[in-house]
């Protein structure tokens, strides 16, 4: 796995840009973790969050619909349509727990996800 380390963040190569559908998500394997990676093409932005929806612990967020609520980019879990901010991970529908978010950077055709070192 290609990885570089800077400022306590490990950047690893997740996939190529065209591996991710426009305005949709994919699931990335990082060791034993699952990370949902989204290409928010309408705004030219990339986001990454944990793949597990905290509501029923389902590995499904990468298969959810993305969109916005006012200006806030969000993803809706396919199971019960709980929505989460892609920026902060905060749940936008009620009091569910929040989700973890990751930094993403694109260099050429390569998409990297930044994982904080523990």
């Amino acid at each position, binding site marked *: 796995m290609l990885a570089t380390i800077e400022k306590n963040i490990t950047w690893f190569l*997740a*996939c190529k840009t065209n*591996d*991710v*559908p*426009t*305005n*949709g998500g*994919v*699931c*990335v*394997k990082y060791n*034993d973790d*699952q990370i949902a*990676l989204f290409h*928010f093409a*309408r*705004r030219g932005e990339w986001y990454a969050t944990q793949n*597990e929806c905290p509501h*029923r*612990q*389902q*590995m*499904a967020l990468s*298969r*959810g*619909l*993305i*969109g*916005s*609520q*006012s200006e806030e*980019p*969000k993803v*809706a879990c*396919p*199971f019960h*349509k709980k*929505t989460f901010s892609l920026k902060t991970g905060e749940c936008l529908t009620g*009091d569910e727990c929040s989700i973890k978010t990751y930094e993403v950077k694109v260099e050429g055709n390569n998409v990297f996800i930044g994982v904080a070192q523990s």
Partner: protein
Amino acid sequence: MKIIVVGNGMVSYKFCEKLIAKGNTASFDITIFGEEIRPAYDRVHLSEFFSGKSADDLLMAPASWYAENNIILHTGDPIQQIDRSNKTVHSFKGITQSYDVLILATGSSAFVPPIPGVEKDGVFIYRTIEDLEMMTAYAKKATTGAVIGGGLLGLEAAKAMIDLGITDTHVIEFAPRLMPRQIDEAGSNILKAKLQTLGLKIHTSKNTAEITGNGCIDGMLFSDDTKIDVDMLVISAGIKPRDELAKLSGLEVGTRGGIVVNNKLQTTDPSIYAIGECALFEGMVYGLVAPGYEMADVVASNLTNGGKVFGAYDMSTKLKLIGVDVASFGDPFVAGDNVRSVVFEDTMKGIYKRINITGDGKQLLGGILIGDAEQYNMLLQTVKNKVVLPPNPEDVILGSRGGESDGGAGVLSLPDEAIVCSCESLTKGMICSAVTEAGCETIDAIKKCNKAGTGCGGCVPMVKDIMLHTMKAQGKYVRNVLCEHFNYSRQELFDLVKIHELKTYDEVLDHLGKGDGCELCKPPVASILASLWGEMILKKGNDTAQDSNDRFLANIQKGGTYSVVPRIPGGEITPDKLIVLGQVAKQYNLYTKITGGQRIDMFGAHLNDLPAIWEKLINAGFESGHAYGKSLRTVKSCVGSTWCRFGLHDSVSYAIRIEERYRGLRSPHKIKGGVSGCIRECAEAKSKDFGIIATEKGWNLYVCGNGGSKPQHALLLATDLDDETCIQYIDRFLMFYIKTADTLTRTATWLNKMEGGIDYLRNVVVNDSLGMSQQWEAEMQVLVDCYKCEWKEAIENPEIRKRFNHFVNAPEVKDPTVVFEEMRDQKKVRDWK
């Protein structure tokens, strides 16, 4: 001011919320001591724990809420002693803390009658989440159950037993009728009959003498010497105020329990208050949540220099017990010389309504509603606001019969001071101003704005009515717009997409919407595009606008695996094809089940395996069944005249022809059809969106039927049709529906909202009153002609096929978190928490 709250239930939480809402929080120093290990949770909806809600779902607020509001919360640490002279409390874990004001919100415990044997294993009370967890564990080995108590809580407990899978459950009530505090005997009889049809065995005037069994309960013995066998018993015979701490501290308590309070909810020690079910006000303990909230508000108001006092509280209540509406309002039992009652009883439908009115017929005093409580809110407001009754008072429960429509003043006739949401003490005027001043135009916005309807939820329909009326009064054009990104209804959007010839979701958003879209508008727009142009739903970037099921052409199931449903038109299948289904299911280790629509569903397929599974199915002659789409599902058929000695026509052949005509058609919601070969109706066609039943002369066509949560029989549209005319009519009917229905609206609801109803629909479809028939038939023919199996296209197109992997960077790895268990020789997915 140092405030200590003893107890952390719903009323305790509400007190804190109300106090904080009054502002000036810096001057308060709030500490809560609770006995239970969890922060306050919603005890009213406890039974939802069994229908899938988790303990966290039931929390009034997460633990973090207390910290955010500078409230110190000690859970699992009950107060054991109050030292009134030094104004301090001592907790179980040894904390000693001083107070200026002490709030007792200790609630109540279950009243357990002194019956010999109550200590046996398998005897439970129904009060806390822990009780429910213990019941759940025990229920696994129980087959018959009983509940002592036929009141509100007892019937809730009986529902819990049914939810736990113990359908053989007895309800034992000491009084001669069910819910003796709320309803009369005639009402009780109707309720009893309804509950018995659900499998409950109801015994009234029954006194339990002994609980038998050696260590564990095995039966119950009654004072009339009868007995029953039971493995599990829940006692829910009433509540007992938790007043032991108050008693120990020398505060006055009632002879039958309850901490005595004045109209400011002060106990005999003016710096100690009692609120909720532990308080005794004018000889009465209030065992409902709404008066408890009102008490919380009174104390919060008095601590912030408001002058509110607590008065006799209205105990009107409406609830759904095991699916049956039960309501009682005002004075349900009042009788006397100057009082009359109007009673309506329908034992067929299980409906009972009683209203008590003054002798002059002008004022409503109270009443009872069973089986149909739709008028509850309006009737309660009529009592509370002394609204003058119409000349024929029975109209308020029966609706106006004959003559002009009732002029249904409805919510309009209410004064602005009328309390609409009693949990939050909100008046009609406050809800109107949420619309006019705060600009709320959805129920969710109102809930956020002033919390209306967030307690018991009973007033939500009325709040919605008030909102719509207020919006109309402001001259707003009220319609169902899709979401914040499209200010159009589905019907308007359908026409606009067609006029502008838009082909992708992004084009539609750019031309007609704003923002970035969301999960509410993407699926309906994608559906409109498919209905209009008939293109493969995953092409042109529309894949990420499809709901998850459409996007992966399969139904997502618990655990994240998918189910596979090939089309079996009319339910007819050859032995060879059956064998292929068996082979595929075996090879990919799939759980198999026959569906309600005469097909075979194969569950537990990993995303990665879907293309290979479908490749095998398609090679064997199968095609997509569209079980994942808002589209035609099945056309169910009986075996018809080819085999059946009663059959008039060949229903199977006709069903196959129709299913193949409309397969893949996208619509506002799913569509189901049925064809029966004779009047015996074995295909249950009248429960379908369109149903066809053979007659001597041809086919009768019925439309807009529905199973589901609100079953409705299809209505007769046309009679004695030949094959071609019947299809022509279905073409027109479906196109009219697809073009005009709101999103996620089945044909039954669509018809119910249509002005003129079935007569209007018949005019449009049969008599062509809109002159659209030719165009609709032509448009349908285009869609029929461009049908292709989506799965065939998906597996042949490498760009689409590569999306069927769980990990983008490890395509060969399946989701490792999926765990299966075994059940009846097949697999099942591990249940979620």
